[in-house]
């Protein structure tokens, strides 16, 4: 059936149609008033006179695939009608954005390329609502984000500005864990000094690829630290990580942090000291303790017990997490030598 036949059969629908072509080559006909709700299509029609026939179909941007186009047009079809009340529009919007996050992201992208700002606002608000209040792991899972930050980077000390003793203890444990990691790395790299250097340059390379100049600085610092004595190295590192607290404050730092936040109750009172004072005090404390520590099974057990107890109190799945971190040095040892020298823990 040709276009002309269609027009004859349905004379009451004297609408004009325009032709749109998606990046995959598919051409379709769409009611003009609906499609023109998108500024990009509007411009193509008005300024360039495109879309009037199949041969002159408007080429839509690559980010608009047929599925997304259909969604966008559904949105336009509803909103371009002037008769709806604000309440109706809001209600439509609420129902409209109920879709999986992958499609929501694609829709945002499509709406943006068609310059349909109201839809971009709607979808970005929906995405923000999804992100808000979730733990990093949850967010990573929902959006399929690669977990490519090193454990080092994730284990930045939490900014303990609430003086919560639990946070302080957790920080101490993290610091111990970090130290353990370093010990293991040292042991592993004892015989492979050159590889060590290679790792770091790969690190730099990766950071460079990701366009992250700050990271290269961080890795340089790591280099510097390894050459110094253990104690000073640790002290410097904690200072460095504090200074380059690129992840910010008590907001960030660790995956587990969110769990802790939930548990913090305002009624938790403790002596309030000045923030900086406390941090330095903690560091000194930590150093003293570590002088006597050796990584031996007894200690490992002690740490395990402490952590489990702590985790139970905080109701977090710590044992599993710890397993991963501890196995980091053991299982993945051969893998360390490979390209993935940054040692990130792939889940």
């Amino acid at each position: 059936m040709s276009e002309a036949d269609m027009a004859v059969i349905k004379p009451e629908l004297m609408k004009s149609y325009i032709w749109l072509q998606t990046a995959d080559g598919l051409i379709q006909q769409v009611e003009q008033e609906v499609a023109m709700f998108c500024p990009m299509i509007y411009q193509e029609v008005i300024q360039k006179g495109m879309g009037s026939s199949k041969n002159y179909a408007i080429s839509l941007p690559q980010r608009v695939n047929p599925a997304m186009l259909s969604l966008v047009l559904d949105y336009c079809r509803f909103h371009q009608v002037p008769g709806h009340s604000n309440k109706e529009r809001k209600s439509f919007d609420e129902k409209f954005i109920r879709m999986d996050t992958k499609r929501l992201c694609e829709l945002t992208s499509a709406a943006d390329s068609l310059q349909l700002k109201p839809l971009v606002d709607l979808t970005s608000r929906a995405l923000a609502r999804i992100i808000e209040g979730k733990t990093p792991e949850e967010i990573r899972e929902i959006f399929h984000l690669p977990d490519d930050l090193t454990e080092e980077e994730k284990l930045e000390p939490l900014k303990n500005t609430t003086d919560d003793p639990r946070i302080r203890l957790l920080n101490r444990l993290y610091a111990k864990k970090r130290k353990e990691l370093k010990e293991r790395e040292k042991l592993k790299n004892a015989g492979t000094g050159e590889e060590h250097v290679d790792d770091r340059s790969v690190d730099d390379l990766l950071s460079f690829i990701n366009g992250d100049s700050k990271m290269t600085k961080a890795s340089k610092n790591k280099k510097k630290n390894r050459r110094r004595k253990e104690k000073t190295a640790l002290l410097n590192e904690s200072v460095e990580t504090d200074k380059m607290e690129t992840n910010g404050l008590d907001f960030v730092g660790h995956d587990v942090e969110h769990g802790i936040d939930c548990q913090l109750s305002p009624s938790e009172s403790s002596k309030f000291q000045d923030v900086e004072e406390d941090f330095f005090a903690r560091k000194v404390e930590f150093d003293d303790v570590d002088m006597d520590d050796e990584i031996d099974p007894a200690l490992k057990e002690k740490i395990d017990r402490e952590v489990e107890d702590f985790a139970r109190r905080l109701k977090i799945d710590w044992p599993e997490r710890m397993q991963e971190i501890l196995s980091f040095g053991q299982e993945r040892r051969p893998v360390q030598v490979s390209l993935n020298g940054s040692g990130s823990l792939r889940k």
Partner: protein
Amino acid sequence: MLQKQREASSFEIEMELDKLSSLPGHVIDQILSQLPIKDAVRTSVLSRKWRYRWAKIPHLVFDNQCVPVPSQDQTSGKNKLIHIIDHVLLLHNGPIQKFKLSHRDLIGISDVDRWILYLSRSTIKEFVLEIWKGQRYKLPSCLFSFENLIHLELFNCLLKPPSTFKGFRSLKSLDLQHVTLAQDAFENLISSCPLLEKLTLMNFDGFTHLKIDSPNLQFFDIGGVFEYISFENTFQLTLVSVGLYANRSDGDMFLEAIKWHRFFTNLPHVRRLEIQCHFLKYLATGGAPRMLPKPCSDLNYLSMRINFNDWEENSAALCILSSSPNLLELELLARAEEHNAVEKVTYSWVEDHYKCHLEHLRLVKIAGISGIRSELDFIRFLLLYSPLLERMTIKPASLDGGWDLMKELLRFRRASVQAEIVYLDP
């Protein structure tokens, strides 16, 4: 080798699935800006790409929701807040377009000066500062060098622009509440912001003469104590709301006489007018003309707080009503404190105003009345001269005399066949 390949391809698959990180920069900015600052900063642990992504967001909002501080100890809460803001500003990387600081723990600190200095070096467009408690916060002079400012909102601040201040060239919206500002500084501020479209002033001190000279002004909302108000060159003004919190008058007979002229002449296109608190009394003192020299042909909505017991205010209200042929909606609120006064208005003026036809009036709301003669007369007048009236809502101040009021209302003749009178409980 195989491991490497496997890892490389899994990497690609993850890239494919990760639709979020590949959204355009301005869209990610928009998403992050809609998160409380805490959540936005937390995205830095998600993945490599997101590590410093938050640092580019152009909107920074620090308020009670974004920075929940357990308010046990004020000092510690304050310190934490200062710490957080310092950190975020230091780590931020990119232009800051909007900055809002409104936290209840933010009192008596001079750190705000430091942050304002930092912001003055960026191209900030919107600045909101609310000092919840304590005395007026004296703003540093570097605030007046925010050249790109489009929206400025201040609460509980003291403004002292330096002598070199040439105005905010791009400022479109100004909101000053609980501020102290000298008279000449105020006039200079208004006249040196040529693009100003929206002006809100509430509870101000330091200036009492309001000479509004602003060619692009569209929205004007004021509530405070002043002695003099006039509009000059304000032909775009469409929404005006004036609330005079305490009655003060010039004392000068000449100025009294031209009050009406000063106020209404340069509001030819006003569409929405609210006369609140004692402003009608201010206008009414000294008498009101029968009609305004030029009708307010665009006026669609009028709200007045009126003391029905005062003859001058009644005539002032009638003057405005007579000059608003296209009025669609009217709201009359009885001023409470003069309720117990003895009825002064006994003369029935309704028949005198046969010329006042509210041809388009559709909706009337009257509240706070108690059933005295003048109130009933006014209602009768409105019902008689509004042929297209659809609904009149009446809400008395108290239950006393409710029945009598209703009995009277039932009797009134209505010009409009569709008029509905709705009596609401107080």
